[in-house]
Every structure is written in structure tokens, then in C-alpha cells.
């Protein structure tokens, strides 16, 4: 465990080099709240509630969901794994005494922790700049569930992106998989619009899939749009899917690693 914590700490410090990337993430986060402010401002101009949300609830949802989106940097994992497999430098992960999947997971935690500091600043800026009266749940169980869901959600996303990266062992170009998952995941996590606005049937299906529990459920829990029961079921679903992905990744890695033709192998 100590070696993985060292990876987290190293990656946290390494982010100091990527100041511009951090700044862009903060700008993008403010941009999301600006989008909500303009679009939903126009939508709410003739009505007081949409799908159970008031205008201020909606803005609160976007402030919190854009914060979570900003700290989830798991998308870099598919690019990094793919690049290293194609470049032949993935052999590093085959020779060091660490599990590659856990290595990338703890690496992502380090990156997320650093981004969280700036995501918090941009969230505070958005609250001030757009006059958001932040709705916040007063239920400790809901808040606790949300706090647990965020790192668990990142863990699931890392394992999904690691899996996509591993496909490079089999297919030379994984651009197709990256584009398809990136677009669809953005929508079904609830980072574009709250999941509660989708048709009931779609919501019922999404409840058993992990994606909505990565962004929507913690954001809805923190803004008081859903209760702790939904939080607990979200935790169970995410735990189950993360475990499934971990087992699947191990099997895929063991099966495909023999195809690797890398540096020093």
C-alpha cells in the first residue's frame, strides 16, 4: 500500500508542472456553470420549476457536478496506457513490483487531489459570479454517501478507461472506442443535464449501471435532490461494477500482455 501512496504523492506534486492544464480545467468548470446560468436562466424565465428543480437548485447542481467532473481525470488513463503500449514503454509496468491497474488508480487519485484544490476555487468563483444560492443537503447520511461515491466513482472510471487502454494490445488504433465511450459517458453520468430529467424508463435502467452514480447521484445528494437511500444503492452498484471491472481487467491484461512487443521485452 505504501508504494501506491508514494505514486499518489508523486503524481500530486508532478501536477505543478501542468499549471496551464489545471487553469484550463478551472475555466472549463466555470464555463459549465455559465452555460447553465444562460440556458436555464432562459428556460426558467417563464416557469418556476422544471423536473422538480428550481433555477437555484439547477445552478447548485451544475456547480457541484462541474466540481466532480473537474477532479475526474480518468480519461487521461486510456490515452496514457494506449500511448505506452504503442510506444513500447508499457514494459515499465510489467517489470516494476506493482499491479498496473492499481498503479494507474493511485496515480489518478494524486492528479484528482491536486485538481480538487483548483476545482474548489472555481466552484467558489462560480457561486459568487453567477449569484448561486447553493442548495446543500442537511442530511449527514446523504453527505457521507456523496463523499464516498466520489472516490469510488473515480475508481470505476479509471478501471473503465484502463480497460479501453488495454485494448491497444489487440487493436492498434483505439480511437473508435475512446470517442464512443467519451461522448456517451458524458451524457449518462449526468454532467450535461441532470438524470432526473430523462424519461423514467431510462432512469430505471441507469440506476443499475454505474455511470449515473459517478456524477449525478453525488451531486443530487449534496444538493438535497435525492435521499440517502438512493446514495446507499448507488454505493452498492458502484462497488459491484468496480469489482467486476477489476476482475475483467486482470483477465484481459493476462490474456493480452503476451501480444506485447515492447522495449526490453
Amino acid at each position, binding site marked *: 500500500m505504501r508504494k501506491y501512496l508514494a505514486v499518489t504523492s508523486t503524481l500530486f506534486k508532478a501536477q505543478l508542472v501542468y499549471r496551464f492544464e489545471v487553469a484550463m480545467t478551472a475555466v472549463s468548470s466555470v464555463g459549465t456553470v455559465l452555460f447553465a446560468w444562460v440556458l436555464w436562466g432562459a428556460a426558467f424565465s417563464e416557469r418556476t420549476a422544471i423536473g422538480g428543480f428550481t433555477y437555484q437548485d439547477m445552478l447548485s447542481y451544475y456547480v457541484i457536478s462541474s466540481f466532480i467532473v473537474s477532479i475526474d481525470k480518468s480519461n487521461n488513463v486510456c490515452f496514457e496506457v494506449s500511448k505506452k503500449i504503442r510506444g513500447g514503454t508499457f514494459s515499465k509496468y510489467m517489470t516494476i513490483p506493482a499491479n498496473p491497474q492499481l498503479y494507474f488508480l493511485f496515480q489518478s487519485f494524486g492528479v484528482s487531489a491536486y485538481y480538487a484544490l483548483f476545482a474548489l476555487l472555481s466552484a467558489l468563483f462560480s457561486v459568487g459570479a453567477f449569484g448561486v444560492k447553493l442548495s446543500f443537503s442537511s442530511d449527514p447520511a446523504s453527505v457521507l454517501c456523496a463523499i464516498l461515491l466520489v472516490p469510488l466513482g473515480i475508481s470505476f472510471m479509471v478501471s473503465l478507461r484502463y480497460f479501453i487502454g488495454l485494448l491497444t494490445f489487440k487493436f492498434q488504433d483505439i480511437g473508435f472506442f475512446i*470517442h464512443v465511450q467519451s*461522448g*456517451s459517458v458524458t451524457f449518462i453520468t449526468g454532467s450535461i443535464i441532470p438524470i432526473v*430529467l430523462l424519461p423514467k424508463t431510462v432512469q430505471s435502467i441507469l440506476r443499475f449501471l454505474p455511470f449515473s452514480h459517478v456524477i449525478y447521484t453525488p451531486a443530487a445528494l449534496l444538493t438535497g435532490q435525492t435521499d440517502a437511500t438512493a446514495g446507499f444503492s448507488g454505493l452498492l452498484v458502484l462497488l459491484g461494477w468496480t469489482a467486476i471491472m477489476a476482475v475483467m481487467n486482470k483477465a484481459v491484461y493476462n490474456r493480452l500482455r503476451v501480444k506485447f512487443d515492447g522495449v526490453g521485452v
Partner: protein
Amino acid sequence: MRRNLRFIFLLLKLKLTHMMVFRLSFFGGFLADSMLFLIQILAFNTIYGHIDTIGDWSKGQMMIFIGTFSMLNGINMLVYFFGVLGIPEKIASGELDHYITKPVSPLLRLTFENFDPGSAPLLLLSGVIIAYGVSLEGITLTFPLVLGYSLLVLLMAVLYYDMELILRTIPFFTVAANAITELEGPLLELNFKIPGVLYKGAFKILFYFILPYGVMATVPTQFITGTLSLPGLLQALGVVTVFTVLALRFWRFGLKHYKSASS
């Protein structure tokens, strides 16, 4: 003019030959961008499932807006995006020397040398989205309407090009201009989702006159749906003219400040 057209045709032929080597990546741009716009359609369909209008815009108008932006993006990706994208790196590395020493306009070659035929299906998809919006709005298409709309889309594609060129000319004067060019992404993303008519106050001035991403898909949409006023049309034409003159002059001014690899 004929010489330039022959040159553009030759660049297209070279690019196609090069792309055949990387067949799997051929439709990369199309896949990425079509996903983006399909997700946007899904999002707005969901929102319009709860309300009838956003501001004064109906679902049909919003679909035409999304289709128009998708069309502009398709033209951008197909024709000039990948060429203009490489300008800062060519300035920084001194590779621009190869362009200014050839007996053809460096900007013409940079603009057209990286056609991306893989993005062509995006134009077809955009057409389908626009047709969907038109049918929702119940618009009767006439030849003048289609012609006017098409001309406005082409003009806005020029404006899109102007904005990209202006931002990528800045590296002539700075060591690195990543910050400025990277800002373009979030700004475009924002304006892909929000019709310009929804902006108010300072944001309206910002996205109509300073960084005119807000007019690009909005004006053709307003034209085809019959909501574009004459002052609005003239204003849009003025913005395109000013930014085109500015982009070309800025490029020439930048070239004068180019410190080549050998100097």
C-alpha cells in the same frame, strides 16, 4: 486563380494518398464530432420534453441551430482545421521557412494542405439534423431560402476560419501561445450549446463583437426560421467583413515579425 485551384487540387490528392496509409484513423474526426452533436440533440430533446421554449426558441429552431453548428464544424474539419491547427508549431520550429520560400501563398498552402475527407460524413449528418429541425418547424423550403441560408453558412465558415487564424497568428509575437489557442476549446464548446440570442448584456457584446462565436450558427438559423431582422443581417455581415480583413492583415503583420530558423 486557376493556378491556386490547381494547387489546392494537388494538395487534396497528396493528402488522400497520405491518409490511405492510416485507414483506421480515417473517420476519427467524424466519430468524435458526430458523438458530440448527437449527445447535444439528446440533451435538448430531454430539456424540450419538459418545456416548450427556451427563451423564444422552439425545439425545431434549436435542432436547426445544432445542425448548423455541426455543419460549420464539418466544413471546418473537412477543409482547414488541421492545416490552421499546425501554424503555431511551424512558427515555433522554424518550419514555416519551407512555406515562405515556395512560389505560392504560404497561407493558401497552410489552409488547404490538410484536408480531412474523413470528416465529410459530418456534413451529411448535419444535413439530416437540419432537415429534422426544418420539419419540426414546418418550414416550406424555397430556392431563395435555401440559397440565402447556404450563403450565410459559408460566410460563417469564413468567420470561423478568421477566428482560428487570428488566434494562431499570435505565436509570431510570443514564444508560446498555448494559453490563447487552448481557450478556444471551452469558448467553442459553450457556443455550440447556447444560441447567441440567449446572451444578455456583457456576454452578448463579448460573443457577438469581440469573440463572435455567438453569431456563427445563430444567424443562419434565424434566417431560415424567418426571425432574422435586416439590422441583424447587416450586423452579421459587418462582423464577418471586419474579422476577415483583420485576420488577413494580422497574418501579414505577423509574417513580417517571423524570426525564421536561419536568422
